[in-house]
């Protein structure tokens, strides 16, 4: 074997050994447990606190409103679809309140006339001409729109 090749092999062996040593110290413990990734990352992702709460938490205090809602057209809609995430309000009900959208522009997100919107799913109105200037909630109760 020529001397150049021998030296080259030595250099290769050195760098491979170096790589293995570095790998030994840097590889996280849970690497490769389920696949080519750090298994601990799953727990880190799962640790996040949910912000949208379940319906039972709303019903605990606001049972009268929930009862009204399940009689009306909006019965299938979750409270937090309109009112925003409830986690803060549940923890500190006195200091932190939920969102209470009041303007026309909120309601027309669902109810403005649009050809892309399926007519059998949602009632639609002309967003500009329908009772011009009035706020929707003066006529419609958002929890039971046809009350």
């Amino acid at each position, binding site marked *: 074997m020529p001397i150049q090749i021998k030296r080259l092999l030595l250099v290769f062996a050195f760098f491979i050994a170096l790589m293995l040593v570095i790998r030994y110290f840097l590889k996280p413990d849970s690497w490769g447990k389920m*696949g*080519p990734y750090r298994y601990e990352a799953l727990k*880190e992702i799962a*640790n996040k606190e949910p912000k949208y709460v379940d319906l039972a938490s709303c019903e605990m205090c606001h049972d009268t409103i929930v009862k009204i809602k399940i009689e009306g057209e909006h019965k299938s809609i979750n409270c937090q*679809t309109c009112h925003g*995430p409830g986690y803060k309000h549940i923890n500190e009900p006195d200091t932190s309140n939920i969102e209470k959208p009041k303007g026309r*522009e909120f309601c027309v997100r669902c109810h403005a006339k*649009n050809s892309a919107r399926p007519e059998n799913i949602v009632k639609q109105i002309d967003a500009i001409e329908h009772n011009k200037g009035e706020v929707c909630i003066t006529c419609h109760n958002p929890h039971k729109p046809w009350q």
Partner: protein
Amino acid sequence: MAIENKNFSRRDFFRKSGAVAGSVIFASLLNPFKKVYAVEEPKGKSKWYGIGIDIEKCIGCASCVRACKNENDVPKEPFFFRNWVEQYVITNDGDVKVSSPNGGIDGYKQIVPKEDIYKSFFVPKMCNHCSKSPCTQVCPVGASFETKEGLALVDKSYCIGCGYCVQACPYGCRYINPKEGVVDKCTLCYHRLQKGIDPACMTVCPTGARIFGDLHDKESSIAKFIKENNCVVLKPQLNTGAKLFYNALSQEVH
């Protein structure tokens, strides 16, 4: 062009057959590396998540987009989305117009007068949680991976923010979080699933247009949805193993 009538020798034949057999054996040696580019669908009862979207029920309110931004601390500015809703308008002339102003959060305008519209509908989009996902294959540091439940997730403490996966995703479902400097994407609310509650977008959908569940459990809502409807996935020709099923999807959508 006439077929060349060339005489092959026996030696030639053996040599070429040997080359083919050698290639096949070499390719089979690569099999242990399969888990780098595809997660194996578990057999039996273990969970294998799929998502369904019923286009016929979507009213384009973008509650799902708002909910996702709130739940997962996605930056409020435009262009950072884990999910978004597109409005498709196909005119009588055959033009296809797609609009998604700020992901749909601020509502939609009807951009074409009604008499010119041939067809119009909303298409909510999000991560397809592919089983052979192009995004996890390109990660140079092993920060993007797929769980055994078939969810594509990101290990944020390992991500170096190189953006290869952002380019690799054929559905455009990843973005670089400007605050953290690392990539962010839909986790199907993994933190909620582990606690036994539905993902935020599914929770707030007012019409039940979004469905998810275990594809292996034939009684789950997603399995019933696929059974009862004729469902397709986006870009099936890419063989990504997408698990986001659309009902009544027009061929113009891609």
